[in-house]
C-alpha cells in the first residue's frame, strides 16, 4: 500500500562571499572584425557562466555572443575575479563585465561621434551594427568601425571593469554584520509517494519558485534549479558518506548512492525576475539557493503522507519503515503489536 503527501519549505541565501570583501575585475578590448576580447578570471564549473558573460558582453558591446572571446582563467594572464562558488559568478563577474564593457563603449561612442560629428549619445550599437539615431546614412558594421578607428585614428578601444561587493565581518560576540548586499528568497513544494510495506519514498513532483534577479539566460537558471533539486532529492533520501573509526565505508558509487534518471521528480520552476536595485546589471544568483528547500519539503511531504517525522537525513527506506512500524505498534491491538515486534 502506498500513500501520497505534500510538503513545503522556504529558503533564503546571500549572494557572493560571506562577511568578506568580494571583488572581480575584467579587461575588455574591441578587437578586429568587430569581435570582443574579455579577460577575467572567470571560473566555469559547469553552471554556464562563460555563456552568460558572453551574452552580457554582447549586449553591452552591440555584437553577438559568439563574437566574444573569453580568455582562459589563468593567474598569469587575466585579472583576478576570485573563486568559483558562493553563488557569486553572474553577480560579481557579470557586473564587472558590464562595467568594463560600458567603459569601452563610452570611448567607442565618443570616437565614432567625433568621426560622424554627432553627439556620442545619439550612437547605438546592436547586433554587429553601429548607427546614429534617425540617420539613414551614418551606419556601419562593428567590424568596419573597429577597422576605421584603428587604421585611420590609431585608436584601440579598451576598457576595464571592477565590481566590489562590500560586506562586513561578524561581530564575534553577537554576530552583528552586513554579510551580503543582496539576498535571494525561494520556496518549493514536493509531492511524494511512500510505500508502507518497504518504507521507500518516491518524489513525484517538485515545484520551485525562486527570486533570481534579472535573468541572463533562463535555460541555464532552470538548469541550476533542476540540478539543485535532484541533488536535494539525493541528500533527502539516499546519500550518506559513512565512516567507521575513520575508515570510509562508502568508498565508491556502489555504496554511495546517487539519484539517477529513475529517481527524479518532474520539476516545474518559476523565476521571479525583479532586478536587484543595488547593482548595474540587476542580476543575482541561483546556484546554491535552489538546493536548500528541497530536502525539508520532501521530509515534510513524507510526514504528510504517513505521519513519520524524519529528523535525521537521509530518509532511507529503513528509517521510514521503522517509523511506520512504530506507529503501527502504538495504534494496533496487542496481538498484532507482538507480530510487528517480531518482524522488526
Amino acid at each position, binding site marked *: 500500500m502506498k500513500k501520497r503527501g505534500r510538503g513545503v519549505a522556504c529558503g533564503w541565501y546571500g549572494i557572493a562571499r560571506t562577511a568578506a570583501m568580494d571583488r572581480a575585475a575584467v579587461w575588455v578590448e574591441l578587437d578586429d572584425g568587430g569581435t570582443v576580447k574579455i579577460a577575467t578570471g572567470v571560473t566555469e564549473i559547469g553552471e554556464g557562466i562563460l555563456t552568460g558573460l558572453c551574452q552580457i558582453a554582447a549586449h553591452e558591446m552591440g555584437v553577438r555572443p559568439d563574437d566574444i572571446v573569453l580568455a582562459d582563467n589563468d593567474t598569469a594572464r587575466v585579472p583576478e575575479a576570485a573563486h568559483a562558488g558562493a553563488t557569486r559568478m553572474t553577480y560579481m563577474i557579470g557586473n564587472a563585465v558590464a562595467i568594463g564593457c560600458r567603459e569601452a563603449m563610452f570611448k567607442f561612442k565618443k570616437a565614432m561621434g567625433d568621426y560622424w560629428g554627432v553627439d556620442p549619445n545619439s550612437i547605438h550599437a546592436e547586433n554587429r551594427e553601429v548607427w546614429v539615431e534617425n540617420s539613414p546614412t551614418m551606419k556601419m558594421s562593428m567590424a568596419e568601425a573597429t577597422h576605421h578607428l584603428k587604421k585611420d585614428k590609431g585608436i584601440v578601444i579598451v576598457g576595464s571593469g571592477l565590481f566590489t561587493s562590500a560586506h562586513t565581518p561578524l561581530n564575534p560576540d553577537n554576530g552583528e554584520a552586513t554579510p551580503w548586499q543582496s539576498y535571494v528568497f525561494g520556496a518549493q513544494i514536493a509531492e511524494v509517494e511512500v510505500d508502507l510495506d518497504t518504507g521507500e519514498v518516491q518524489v513525484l513532483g517538485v515545484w520551485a519558485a525562486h527570486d533570481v534577479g534579472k535573468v541572463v539566460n533562463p535555460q541555464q537558471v532552470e538548469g541550476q534549479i533542476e*540540478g539543485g533539486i535532484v541533488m536535494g532529492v539525493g541528500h533527502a533520501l539516499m546519500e550518506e558518506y559513512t565512516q567507521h573509526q575513520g575508515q570510509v565505508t562508502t568508498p565508491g558509487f556502489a555504496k554511495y548512492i546517487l539519484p539517477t534518471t529513475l529517481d527524479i521528480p518532474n520539476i516545474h520552476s518559476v523565476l521571479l525576475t525583479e532586478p536587484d536595485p543595488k547593482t548595474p546589471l540587476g542580476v543575482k544568483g541561483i546556484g546554491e539557493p535552489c538546493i536548500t528547500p528541497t530536502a525539508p519539503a520532501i521530509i515534510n511531504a513524507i510526514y504528510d503522507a504517513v505521519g513519520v517525522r524524519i529528523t535525521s537525513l537521509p530518509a532511507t527506506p529503513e528509517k521510514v519503515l521503522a517509523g511506520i512500524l512504530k506507529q503501527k505498534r502504538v495504534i494496533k491491538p496487542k496481538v498484532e503489536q507482538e507480530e510487528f515486534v517480531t518482524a522488526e
Partner: protein
Amino acid sequence: MSKLHSSMSDKKIGEHPLVEITATVNGRMVSRSVPNHYRLIDFVREELHLTGNKEGCGAGECGTCSMFVDGVLVKSCLMPVQKIMNATVETVDDLDRDAGRTVLQQAFHKCGSSQCGYCIPGMVMAATSLLRKMPNPDREQIKEGLGGNICRCTGYQKIIDAVELARDVINKKIPDSSLEENLLEPVMGARTPRLDAPGKVTGSVKYAADMVLPNMLHMSVLRSPHAYAKIVSIDASAALVIPGVEVVLTSADVPGIDNFGVFIEDQPIMARDYVRYTGEAVAAVAAETLDLAIAATKLIKVEYEVLDGVFDPHLAIKDGAPQLHDFAKNNITKHTKIRKGDVEEGFKQADLIVEETYQTAKIEHAYLEPEAGLAYVESDGCVTVHSPSQNITHHRHALAKILGRPINKVRMIMSTVGGGFGGKEDMIYQGMLALAAIKSRRPVRYVFTREESFIASAKRHPFSIQYKMGLKKNGKIVATKMVMISDGGAYAMSTPGVMNKSAILGPGPYQLENVWVDAIGVYTNNTPSGAMRAFGAFQSEFATEAHLDLCAEKLKMDPIQLRMMNLMRDGATTHTRQKIDRVLAVDCLNAVVDLAGWDQGAPNRHGSGKESRKDIGQSGIRQSCTLGTHLKQGEKV
C-alpha cells in the same frame, strides 16, 4: 588506469607483459601492443589518445566511459582490452563520422543538456544506443535507457528533453530547424545555447586528465591507512632505486612554509609528523609510467605509531579528548554566535515551545570528474599547474608560500572543471604536483581514482542541530534557539566559513525578534569537511523548515499559513541586524502555491482522521515506479 596488478614476481617492478591488440576503432584499423592489464578505456584513452570518453569511477557504476563494441553499449572500464580483439569499437570522439555533430549531439546543445560536461559523452553514447534500438521511446523509456549513467549537475531534465527533441527530429515529426538557435531573441534573457556545449557533446574539450605533454611523468600518492598516527619514519630507498622512478616526495622536501587552508592554514601538502585522517597523503612518486609509480609507492616503508583517534564531534570537544591541533583548544575550529533580542524572555512569552534535534549526513560531492592536474616549469622558472581548481587565486597565494617562491613565479591555470560543488576549492594535490615538476624538471600528471577522490577530498559537513522554538497560539514565532555541532574532520578547510553561513542563514527568512544561534565546528579524525553547495545553509535551513512543519502540526495550522505569518517583508531586519529593503520571500511562496496548487490544512490530516488532501496526484507529477510497469494491461505477473 587499474591499480589491480597481476603477479609481479618474475618481472621488473611496474612492468607488465604486453599484448598485441588489433581492432577497428572509429572506422580505422589499429594494431598496438599494450600492457596486458589494460582495460578498453585505457586502450582508447592512453594508447590511442581518444580522450572523448572519460573515466568516472572505474567500477561500471557511472557510465561516463560508455562506448560501443560491435554495436553494443559497454562500460569500457569493465572490459579487459583482450575482449576487443578484431572487434569494432566506436567512441564519442568520432560519433558523427566527421559529418558535424549528430542530431542527438545538436539536441544536447540546443536543450542546454551539458553543464560540466564530464558525463555527457557517456550520456550521448547511451542515448544513441537507445535510439538505435528503440526509435520512438517515450519519456519513461528514455529514463530507463539512461538509467545506467550518472549526472551530478543537470538533474537529468534537460538531457531527457534533448533525447525527446532528437527522437522527434529523426522521426521527422518536427523540422530540422528545431535544433537551431533562435537568433531573434534579444541577447540578454535569451536561451542562448551554451557556447562550450559543442566541445562537451563531442568530448573534444580537454579536462586535466585528458592532457598530455611530451616527456611527462605520472604521479601516484601513498595515503595513510590510519585515521590518527604519529609518523615515526619514512624509508623510500627501495622506491628510489627503481629505474624510471624520478622523484619521491615527502613533507621533508617542502621548501617553504608548509601549510594551506582557505580560512585556517593548518594542513601540510603531505602529512608532517602526524596523519590525522585515513587517506591523507604521506608520500608521492613521479615515474615514467603510472604502473611504475604505483608499484614504487608500495615500496615506501612508513613506520606509524597508531594513536587513539576521536571520531565524534560531541566527544572531541570534551576535556581529555585527543587534541588534533595545538592551536585549537577542545578541538574547536570555529564557534559562530548570533545573539539578537532576548531569547529567554521570548520563551517566557511563548504559548508553545517545540524542541527537536536534527541531523544531516556527511555528503560526497560526487562530481563525475575525479581530481586531476598537470604541472611543469616554464623556461622563465615559473611553475605552472593546470587543475580543475575552483579557486586559482587562493591556490597561487598558498603555493607561492609553500614553495618559497615569488608569487609571479607560480602560475595556476583552471582546466575545464568536471563538476565542483565546492569540492575543488581546497588545494589538496596541486602542491605535490608543483614540487614534483620542480624536482624532476619534467611535466608531471596526477589523476585521482574515484576511491582516492572519496577518501581524500572534503565532504559536506554533517550537522547535529538542537532546535528550540517558542511560538504564540496564532503562529507568531517569539524565540528561536539553535545549537549546532558539526564534524569538520581532520583539517579546517572551509569549516569557519561554513559555520558562519549556517548561523547567519539558519533561522530562515523569518522576521524574528529573539534569536540565539551557536554553530560549532569541531576537528575529528574523520575525512575533512569543506565547502559544498549552500555551505552550511543546507543543513541549518533544513532544520528550520522541518521544525516549522512540526510546529504547524502542533498548532494544527497550515504550514504555508505559518510561514506567511512569519516571513520577512520589505525593510526587514535580519538575524545579524542588517536592514534589507526589498524582500521577495512572500512573493516566492505565493508563486509556488500558484504553480503547484495547495490544499490548506495541518500536516498529515488523514493520519489524524481528517479528509485527505485534494491537491495530490494531479498533472505535473511523474508516474510512480510500481511492480509490473512493463506488463501490458491484463497481463499477469
